[in-house]
């Protein structure tokens, strides 16, 4: 039924109005991004005087030059990469075998283990005990703490476990009869078969790591270890109070707004580059484990 000619007049109107509304919603979703990009490429004056609406005014790279000349930007960018790559790899190393084990019917106490995982979705000790625990474990202000402390969560494990459970048991049985052990079954059969689910979980991990700011802000004291998001926050909040910065603005073509917009753009770009590769998977992958009817 994709041939419009087969539609009644009323349906045609309905379809067109609907398309218009979706287009409006989509554009309004897109607009803030365009606005921020436009601000980042405009002069400070143009932004302050409110001329920037859709496209850059007095196109300039001044804000980017300022941002890229800032060593803290590069340090925090590097740190974000460390946290994202290290954290995602560690997460997968824990989650994938764990989910596989939990999906096996022959696992003794399977119900108990699953409850142990699921319970944490319903009851959480909260911010303070978690913080004190990290401190007691000596994981404050360290790369390791950020990477290990958030390596796992119940949702991802359950998502993947459900996906593994949905695969026909005969794959495992065939491999077992062929002489494969559990590690071989997981690595040679389940992992290749679970690409959509694994892609989804990888995406979740990467995005969470890339965007994570709260705990990085709380747990890290050392400026040299903060990730990009924490640096961005400091910029947005502190630039206005920074006298040096304020005075440097007098003769500069950038402003507080354009500089923060430029950092935001720099932080979004990797997400945008990465997004299309994995986007095709998550429609499918997400449903595999999430709400299944």
């Amino acid at each position, binding site marked *: 039924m994709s041939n419009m000619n087969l539609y009644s007049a009323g349906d045609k109107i309905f379809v067109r109005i609907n398309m218009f509304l979706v287009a409006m919603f989509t554009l309004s979703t897109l607009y803030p991004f365009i606005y921020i990009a436009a601000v980042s490429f405009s002069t400070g004056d143009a932004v302050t005087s409110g001329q920037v609406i859709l496209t850059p005014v007095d196109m300039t790279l001044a804000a980017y030059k300022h941002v890229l000349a800032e060593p803290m930007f590069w340090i925090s960018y590097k740190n974000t990469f460390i946290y994202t790559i290290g954290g995602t790899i560690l997460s997968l190393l824990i989650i994938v075998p764990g989910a596989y084990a939990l999906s096996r019917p022959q696992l003794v106490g399977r119900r108990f283990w699953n409850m142990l995982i699921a319970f944490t979705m319903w009851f959480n000790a909260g911010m303070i005990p978690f913080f004190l625990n990290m401190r007691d474990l000596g994981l404050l202000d360290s790369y390791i703490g950020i990477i290990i402390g958030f390596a796992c969560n119940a949702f991802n494990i359950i998502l993947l476990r459900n996906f593994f459970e949905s695969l026909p048991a*005969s794959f495992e*049985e*065939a*491999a*077992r*009869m*062929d*002489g494969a052990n559990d590690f071989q079954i997981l690595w040679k*059969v389940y992992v*290749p078969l679970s690409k959509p689910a694994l892609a989804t979980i990888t995406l979740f991990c990467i995005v969470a790591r890339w965007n994570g700011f709260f705990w990085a802000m709380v747990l890290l004291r050392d400026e040299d270890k903060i990730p990009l998001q924490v640096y961005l926050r400091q910029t947005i909040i502190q630039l206005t109070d920074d006298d040096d910065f304020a005075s440097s603005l007098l003769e500069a073509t950038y402003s507080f707004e354009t500089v923060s917009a430029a950092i935001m753009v720099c932080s979004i770009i990797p997400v945008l580059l990465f997004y299309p590769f994995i986007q095709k998977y998550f429609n499918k992958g997400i449903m595999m484990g999430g709400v299944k009817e």
Partner: protein
Amino acid sequence: MSGVKLDKIVKRYGNIEVVHGIDLEVQSQEFVVLVGPSGCGKSTTLRMVAGLEEISGGTLTIEDKVVNNVAPKDRDVAMVFQNYALYPHLNVYENMAFGLRIRKESKESIDKQVTEVAETLGLTDYLERRPADLSGGQRQRVAMGRAIVRHPKVFLFDEPLSNLDAKLRTQMRAEIKRLHKRLGVTSLYVTHDQVEAMTLADRIVVMANGRIEQVGTPMDLFNNPKNIFVASFIGSPPMNQIDAEIDVVEGKLFAKFGDHRLALADSKELGTHCQGHKVVLGIRPEHILTNAQAEADPETATNAIPVELDLIETLGSEALLHTMVMDRPFVVKAETHGDIAHLEKTSAFHFKPSMISLFDKETGDAIDHPAKA
């Protein structure tokens, strides 16, 4: 030498026993088919042999070695699954090589074996393809190929043809039979399709409710079913059944039902004092005569019941005549000789007394079964 021996094999899930002590000995190189309705325990039994289910009781021997607690990979058995379980991410070659690679065989040896088996199965041109790019029959062949390359002691088949369409199924059935003749590997085959069982098996094991009902060659089961269940399960269309009472007239046995009365063959088991004994008459559709053939023969000329046909299904050389007898469907398979006009005129079914099997109404067991003699 015995290939596989099941001695009082039991399967329990918690407190529920689903397989109640199966005894079965599969001879080396024999092709045995387990057949029965779904839920009869045939697949569970097969999976216990494979090692995919734990054995709750009894002893399983493969080539005279007890394997109850041996892992599947060490039992030296190979299995063909209902859904083939071909790895979608591997091509045909890699699918077949999977088991050999796991067993760390040398590259040359893997290559040699896979190529050889692929040739046998006519898969040489498809080795590079992924399962998704194969037809149903080809996938089926790859699944068998994967089992064959391992040169196992026993082949296990779990309803391997049930995902194929009717035509392919017939073709693959013949292929499996040919393959077995050539390779001569002990095979245990599970199906719910009695035609598959009849055509493939050296011996058939009919199962119901976790028990073996009867074991025998296909013809043995067809001719001498032990009870109503086996009788109705083996043969297509199934055996017709009529509830009747025994009537003894002058030392001769008759079956009485409704207004009808049919002469029966002499019985060793039913004496003359069995007047009124409740039985089930079992008559195979192909053993019933229609007017034209029967009236000539004095034995069948009067041994008949009048019928009105509701339906004739034409199959070509044969036709199925449908009617109701004693409120139950009754089917006769008759030859058409190229024309069904003469069948449309059918007004009575004639019975040869020797072709009527008798079953005890109460126990369902066959009366005068040769095994009892």
